[in-house]
């Protein structure tokens, strides 16, 4: 579905969504086709569910979003830092 369709179907709702098709323009990530994975009662729960799903399926592109947003404003940032490279060396 497109975001506008999801907003109509799930008004005023926290959701976990998955990007099925997406592209990047400049620093903006545009989600072209989106699937609703689950509904959440509040933002804190949505973040926890996102973390759980992201850990379980690290290659899938999940987001925690609220349908009050007319446009999904998702921006990309690069990090050269310590992230996984370091963890891979010290993980048990």
């Amino acid at each position, binding site marked *: 579905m497109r975001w506008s369709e999801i907003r109509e179907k799930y008004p005023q709702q926290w959701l976990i969504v998955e990007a099925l098709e997406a592209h990047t323009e400049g620093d903006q990530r545009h989600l072209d086709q989106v699937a609703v994975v689950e509904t959440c009662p509040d933002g804190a729960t949505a973040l926890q569910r996102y973390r759980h799903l992201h850990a379980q399926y690290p290659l899938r592109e999940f987001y925690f979003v609220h349908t009050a947003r007319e446009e999904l404003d998702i921006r990309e940032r690069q990090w050269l830092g310590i992230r996984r490279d370091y*963890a891979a060396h010290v993980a048990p």
Partner: protein
Amino acid sequence: MQLTLRHDLILTHVTVAYQGREAVIEDVAVDTGSATTLISADVLAQIGIVPEPADVLYTVRGVGGAEVVFSRRLDRLQTSYQAVEQFEVEVGGMDYGFAINGILGMDYLLRTGAIINLATLQLDFADVEGR
């Protein structure tokens, strides 16, 4: 202030203030490889910072993966005596498999004129706020 060296990372602690509540956050890595500052969602939840409907999301891509975080403007972010008012940070799960609660990135380090002395493990500030 004295930095702690752990697994070849330099760690400090910061104080954050948000809507009248304060928290001291231990084990924050000083990271010149990160453009922005990121703080653990678990720690910030204790002072009432949770995702809000209008928050801007960032997808942060690093070595080996990406993580979605939200952003929030803190009333204050303070390291030692160096406070910055109205400072925007990213907030995320930081589920990387190692125990740090935040990343003090170049946005904060540049703005405060941070001086990192690796010989003595001291973090000082030239205080260039407003320059």
